């Protein structure tokens, strides 16, 4: 259910509307592949501490926008800031370190690492991760603390019994859970989930939804791509609709429901109803 304070309810429902406390501000980001305009977002702000859903038909540019914002792809043009810090040209791993972590649509479990190792890889501030630190640093007490944290998190996600198994032996749904749990080990402020529910059975969907709500309750900002409208309705504070690379609508879930542009974007225009 949407957060009770609902600071966003008073905002205008126009694309690009400024938010009272934005953590992520996107300005005029454009990406073209050959002649095809994949992303052209004039203005988009993400409110701190909320769950924002990014929806839109196939090929609307949702994943491309994720790639751009997290440094996995470079735009031809544009500017975006996380907590006031510019992210243009920042490599992906630094974006993650600055507190914005993403997951992938096709889960990327590190197959020949154990589940626990998958978690520990993601842990922040481990001096043993530098070459000299690994050889001579005093990393074991940090490791022990990380391990405790990882096990607690795995328990929360129901994976603790798999901790010593190779991640490659997990089922598809378990990998989804692991990927989300692993992203949290980075202690991000913003977590960007690319279709976390895709290919997951309904029971697990509810579990995942619970986890996502819990993230917001922990004060994290969640942006996620989703195509199941019931899920979007149930969980998001704010919905952003992308179509052909541009933001065509944004607003609270109830508002999006009554937006004809959105319905047209999803179902297609009636014949003759050219915009």
């Amino acid at each position: 259910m949407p957060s009770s304070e609902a600071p966003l309810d008073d905002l205008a429902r126009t694309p690009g509307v400024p938010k009272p406390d934005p953590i992520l501000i996107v300005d005029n980001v454009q990406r073209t592949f050959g002649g095809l305009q994949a992303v052209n977002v004039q203005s988009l702000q993400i409110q701190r501490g909320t769950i924002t859903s990014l929806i839109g038909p196939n090929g609307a540019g949702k994943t491309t926008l994720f790639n751009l914002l997290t440094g996995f792809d470079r735009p031809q043009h544009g500017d975006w800031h996380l907590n006031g810090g510019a992210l243009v040209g920042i490599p992906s791993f630094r974006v993650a370190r600055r507190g914005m972590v993403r997951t992938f649509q096709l889960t990327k479990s590190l197959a020949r690492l154990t589940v626990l190792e998958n978690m520990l890889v993601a842990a922040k501030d481990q001096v043993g991760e530098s070459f000299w630190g690994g050889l001579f640093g005093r990393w074991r007490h940090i490791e022990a603390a990380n391990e405790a944290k990882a096990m607690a998190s795995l328990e929360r996600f129901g994976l603790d019994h798999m901790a010593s198994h190779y991640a490659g032996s997990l089922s598809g749904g378990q990998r989804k859970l692991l990927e989300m749990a692993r992203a949290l080990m980075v202690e991000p402020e913003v977590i960007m989930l690319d279709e976390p529910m895709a290919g997951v059975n309904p029971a697990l969907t509810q579990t995942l939804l619970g986890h996502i709500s819990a993230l917001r309750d922990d004060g994290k900002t969640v942006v996620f791509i989703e195509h199941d409208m019931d899920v979007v309705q149930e969980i998001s504070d704010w919905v952003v609709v992308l179509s052909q690379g541009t933001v065509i609508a944004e607003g609270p879930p109830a508002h999006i429901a009554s937006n004809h542009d959105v319905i047209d974007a999803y179902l297609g225009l009636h014949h003759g109803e050219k915009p």
Partner: protein
Amino acid sequence: MDWVKILIDAGRAAVGVPAAAYALSAIGLNLQFGYTGLLNFGHVASMMVGAYGMAITVDRGGSMWLGVIVGILLALILGLILGIPTLRLRADYLAIVTIAAGEILRILVRSSWAEPVTNGILGIQAFADEFFDLNPIPVGLYGIGRFRFDERTVWVMILGWGLVAVVTLFMWKLTRSPWGRTIRAIREDEDAALSLGKNVFGYKLQSLMVGGAIGALAGMFLAIDQQNVTPDTYIPLLTFYAFTVVIIGGPGSLLGPITGSMIFWFLFEFLDGVMTGAVLNDWFFGWFEATDIGPIRFALFGVGLMWLMIYRPQGLFGSHEEMLIDAQ
């Protein structure tokens, strides 16, 4: 056919100087290929700069210790120069660039242009006297029965296996640290590692450089044993030997390079003995001469490499679970 002699010779090879050298070389390659997933086909170049770094230093009046430091430094610099432009390339391109870079370096070292420093194709000899002068072992043969080594070989073997032990200890510390875990994560999926805030490029570069430095140690050790460096020793074949050793032992396994090297040399020597006996006893109906044994051994080496890569990519003793994951 004298099976006892063949087995003893093969056993001597398995614990001998070449086995130690290739174990060392394979440890370096294992860091790059087994742990980090880099397809470096120019590993022999690290061995070459290590050997030459030491030989040239001593040739110019430096001590062997200084030579060792110079050799390692050169290998680190080589890793840096080679890594910065190439580590973003796809695996097959990386393989081609590194094998080409190794050949370019060999051509440079053997050229008359470099001759004032490298002595061209003639190479440099007799630079390890310092080491052999230190040999405390009295003249004699050591071992049991026919399984014996002379004092010089024993001294070199102590150095070789000593180095293997020290470097393995170093690798144990390194690969079991969070650093080691991170490079394995990069081997599994670069994008995942990036998304978790890991500087993938930096880690790959470190792995290439450190693996190269270990390769340089192997090159130095071989050079010390032979008291000789010549450019045409350092052909791509050496890299492929090291690859085979890594794959026999299991890529990404700590002790794999050691067991791999011992098995590799045991089989190599054993085949040699068996085939020599077979030719002498005319088991091949006169098809093969004694001089054919070397080439046949190489051809069988090729068959072995193919077989391993197809049926045992996780090494002769690789875990079944890992292989299942690998097949997915």
